[in-house]
């Protein structure tokens, strides 16, 4: 029973952090590709 709450806490924490980091990293990468694509 105690394990469920503990693992849920860790899952929420690392899930939110990894999800946010991957989202921002993808947007940074996308912007870089977009700007290099528009170079003459």
């Amino acid at each position, binding site marked *: 029973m105690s394990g469920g*709450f*503990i693992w849920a806490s860790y899952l929420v924490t690392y899930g*939110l952090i990894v999800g*946010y980091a991957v989202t921002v990293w993808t947007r*940074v990468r996308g*912007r870089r590709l977009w*700007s290099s694509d528009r170079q003459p």
Partner: protein
Amino acid sequence: MTRTLPRAVLGALAVVGVAAGLWLALTSSPDVFQGDYVRIMYVHVPGSWLAFLAFGVTALGSLGWLVTKRMVFDRVAEASAEIGVLFTAVSLFTGMLWGYPVWGTFWDWGDPRMASTALMFFVYLGYLALRRSIADPVGRARRSAILGVVAVVQVPLVYFSVTLWRSLHQGMTVRPDGIAMDGSMVAALLVNLAAFTVLYLYLMILRTSLAVQEAEAVATETEQAGRTVAKPNLEGLS
């Protein structure tokens, strides 16, 4: 390459630190009263600490913009507020998951720390919404800087809420006369606090660089849109 190398090193440090923190959190001594539930503290407390740090940096960035009008401060404030909201969400969710088995409830609006943390979360969500609602970069920076400076008063209010009012939360664990915790628990908590702080620095660099790229893209698009407007031929009209 030279710009992304320090970021990659910081990212690697954050991953190693968080992994070490996780290992210590799962192997440290259980609490005499709470048993293994105390392990939630190792993610809950760093989440709260980073929310405070992030909103403090948002206030400093806002103040920096108001004084100097340099856009770099606005971007730092924006990045830090977004990361602060993320870690406030971590603190709220892990707090609820810790509260149910220990206090018998996921949430209690009568608890000053829960209520003030929720209020802080929604105020900074409002800060992010305000930023998205204004297209003009200078107007956006001015209005959000004022809110960024005013909203930071919530940080000490949340922190001292457990001593100012009656609360389900325990009093301060770190006091001038010492730390009321076992040594292995203190070590696990300090490693997690340090690892999450490095993670915050990594996310700040990443998010600030995105803000800079987005601003450059808007400037480029505006310039190109201006160039495509042909000069009107007014010959023969006079």
